[in-house]
């Protein structure tokens, strides 16, 4: 649905996008992650035909943003990070305005507006002035607006910014609902845990360069593997896993158990987190890792309270990928 090839955009001496190449398939929710000023909004603006790239190509639904801007506008719903609203219109008039602007036929306009209001839970606020709405409601109105012409692709720039937890949950549900309706979504956000829950794939961008694009699971695997490589300096491509062990208070100390573990060739490294907690990097495949690790711990006199694979979340992945820990 979306493809960019060597997209480059400069603002004076600042390179906002540096040969950015990515691809987003139909029905995906693509989480676009990056620090402030990384180039997320610029990418979205190029895809929404609000900015012209200096070089490279961008395609939406197979149409070139440079050549078919008018057609793309009808296929794309873009919601900017700051929703500037017409303060002299009611919610209903606001949506009518954009329905008319997108040439939605009069015969369908009413029903489409009612549907998007219902979808975004704004039916009650239909006659309220737009600028009297709370921030959360304005964000939902922004989503309602981008849906008014039934676009195939949604570009949502920080749709959850400034929302309270409830509104964020509602927004997340709404986006998942939209995906179920068959729309492709590109969502940028700083709340990575939320993206992890709803995105089918992510792209991590920094200083205009795409550092990673793919599924979240692949990102985790990459981070996990890279973390072990960094720890032991190994370049082995063998599957690796980190497990976290919490010892029972009556167990021998983590230090003494670690000495025994380090003598085993299948253990890449042992990190002592506290007197009762260890992180063990296994140099074995995931399938048999837990079983032998448990045996090994018991053999070294450990009394185990819990044992589990180390959690790697999107924040870890993001930090590691953007701080240059992974190349």
């Amino acid at each position: 649905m979306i493809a960019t090839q060597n997209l480059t955009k400069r603002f004076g001496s600042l390179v906002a996008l540096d040969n950015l190449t990515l691809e987003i398939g139909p029905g995906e929710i693509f989480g676009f992650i990056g620090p402030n000023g990384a180039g997320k909004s610029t990418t979205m603006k190029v895809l929404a035909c609000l900015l012209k790239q200096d070089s490279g190509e961008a395609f939406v639904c197979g149409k070139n943003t440079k050549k078919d801007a008018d057609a793309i506008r009808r296929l794309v719903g873009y919601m900017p990070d700051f929703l500037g609203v017409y303060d002299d219109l009611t919610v209903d008039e606001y949506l009518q305005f954009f329905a008319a602007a997108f040439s939605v036929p009069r015969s369908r306009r009413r029903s489409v507006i009612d549907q998007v209001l219902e979808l975004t839970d704004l039916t009650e606020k239909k006659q309220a002035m737009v600028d009297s709405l709370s921030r959360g409601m304005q964000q939902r109105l922004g989503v309602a607006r981008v849906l008014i012409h039934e676009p195939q692709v949604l570009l949502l720039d920080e749709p959850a910014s400034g929302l309270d937890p409830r509104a964020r949950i509602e927004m997340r549900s709404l986006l998942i609902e939209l995906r179920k309706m068959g729309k492709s979504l590109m969502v940028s956000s700083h709340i990575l845990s939320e993206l992890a829950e709803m995105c089918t794939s992510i792209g991590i961008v920094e200083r205009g360069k795409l550092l990673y694009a793919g599924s979240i699971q692949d990102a985790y695997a990459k981070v996990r593997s890279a973390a072990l490589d960094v720890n032991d300096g190994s370049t082995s491509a063998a599957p690796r896993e980190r497990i976290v062990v919490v010892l029972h208070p009556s167990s021998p100390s983590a230090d003494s158990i670690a000495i025994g573990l380090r003598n085993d060739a299948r253990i890449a490294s042992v990190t002592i987190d506290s007197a009762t907690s260890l992180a063990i990097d296994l140099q074995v495949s995931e399938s048999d890792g837990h079983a032998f690790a448990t045996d090994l711990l018991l053999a070294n006199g450990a009394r185990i309270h819990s044992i589990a694979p180390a959690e790697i979340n999107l924040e870890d992945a993001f930090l590691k990928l953007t701080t240059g820990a992974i190349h």
Partner: protein
Amino acid sequence: MLTGVFQLVPRGLFGPVFSREIRVVSRLSSSFWVRAFYALGLAALASLVYFVATADIRFSNHGNASAVQELQMFAPILGAFFVWFQFVIMSFVASTLTAGAICDERRKGSIASLLATPLTPAQIVLGKFSGRLVQLIILIAAGIPLLLAVRIFGGISPGFVLSATLITISTALLHASIAMAASARARSSTTAASSGFAMGVLWCFTPMILTLLLAIGSNGPRTFALLPFSPYFSLGIETAASLGDFNPSFFSSNGWLYAIAYNAAGCTLFLCLAVSRLRKIALGGDVELPAKKPRKRTGPLTNPDSSQGTIPGVHPAARTASAALTVWDNPLTWRELRQRVFIRRWHAWAVAIAAALLLSYIYSETGIHEAGVFFPVSAIVLALFYFQSALIAANSIAGERESRSLEVLLTTPLTARAIVRAKWIGALRRVCPVAILYFAIAICFGIVPGTFHWALFPHLLLIALPPVAFLIATGVWFSVIARRSTVAATLNLGLGLAIWVVFPLVSLAIGSILMQISPGSISEEAAVFIAVWNPAPMVVTAIQGATFGPWDVIRMDGYHTFFKFSFWSFSLTTVGFAVGYALLTWGVLQLAARSLAQRTNRVA
């Protein structure tokens, strides 16, 4: 109390807010361009006036003594021209400089962080006021050397330079303070600038209006004591005195000091109002711009597309509301046409009643058939009409950019031409009240009482409206290319002044020089062709020509003022005038659409 004042002045006038304002201005390259262009413009104008005024001396065979004497006569003319030019420009520039001081911060949401500091509202207001006025003082100061240079020719006193400069500065400060107070209330900087400027003009006219009001019921003015308080009157008297034309006994030589004191009092009052409003914002937590109230619906909600039937499962009342499709298929034009001209309906009534009362008073004093009264009244309303037109359109695209709704609008497939056209139509609609006032005056006080021939009405329609349409089109264009609405407004007003005031003067000046060098080198037709595109002489000719008399006189000789037209040739000229401006308007709108398309990556 004194301690408070001592703390307020340095921390307010030269505190952190002042430093920030200065830093921001100093980073903008446009600040330096404005100063440079202003100084160059003044020098160019002064040179032109000099060449015109001295052409006779240089191309004649008078003796040296005579030449020096004529140069001495020229100096006050140049001084007067220069002083008034600067006075008018600075009054408006002052309003635009401070108009965004508070409302822009509220719009951007940065005022909350400013109010969270230990700075008091008074310090914030003073800091912003002084910081923004540095630019103004530099511009006024740029003119002083030129004014002093005029003294080389003699005939202009240092006292006139001093009084004129101080009146200009104090009036500029007054306008700036009013715009600052308006900025604390207004939703946009253009609104603050225009209302600030209009209020400033009213403030300056107030002593003259009071003198008129006090004269009600008597044969002449009861007192002249209030007149020197008006900066317009004081500067006028000072200018007249420097020209040696007029030196009334009731006006003391230091009368201009009253005007400065009056301006200072106004400046203090409006700054206090700005502080009070900012304090209210701070205490009320009202840091964001207030939401607008929904407008009252005047009729039942109806569905223009009634064939759609009813929506099942919806309450009848809700169904009526739900069924209402109010927005047209051309949504931007719909929205532009429903923009309010007056914030409250009673404002419109108040303005209409005030105008009616004022005109009734004037005509009751002079008599309804007094044709001479129509000239100044018509000129003032026409100037207001053009001024409003220049400002109103400048807010169109730039205003959307400032409120950050433009980006959302640009995601729609609306073409640049459709956007520009809608903005132009909307601005035209918003100047309608002044247009109605203008033509109502012409009909009620001119044509109906029989003072003027009915032909005045179509002539005025053809002369007054097309330049407004053109000015609005240029406003939309400037609004596309300028980042800020106040910059667009200033550029548009400058363009209006340039083509209808400066260009005719320059043309006349060049024509005069050419005639001096080589008599007969310029035909009268060429001069008419240049002047005929200016609405001011055309309006004067239309009024003069329609002054009631025998039809034969009107038809044959009525239109002999600046030009020598018969009724029919003048009528034909007004049609050509309207068509010419319509074509120009169309061209500017095309240009605006192209500029918008280029800037926003869309089809023109």
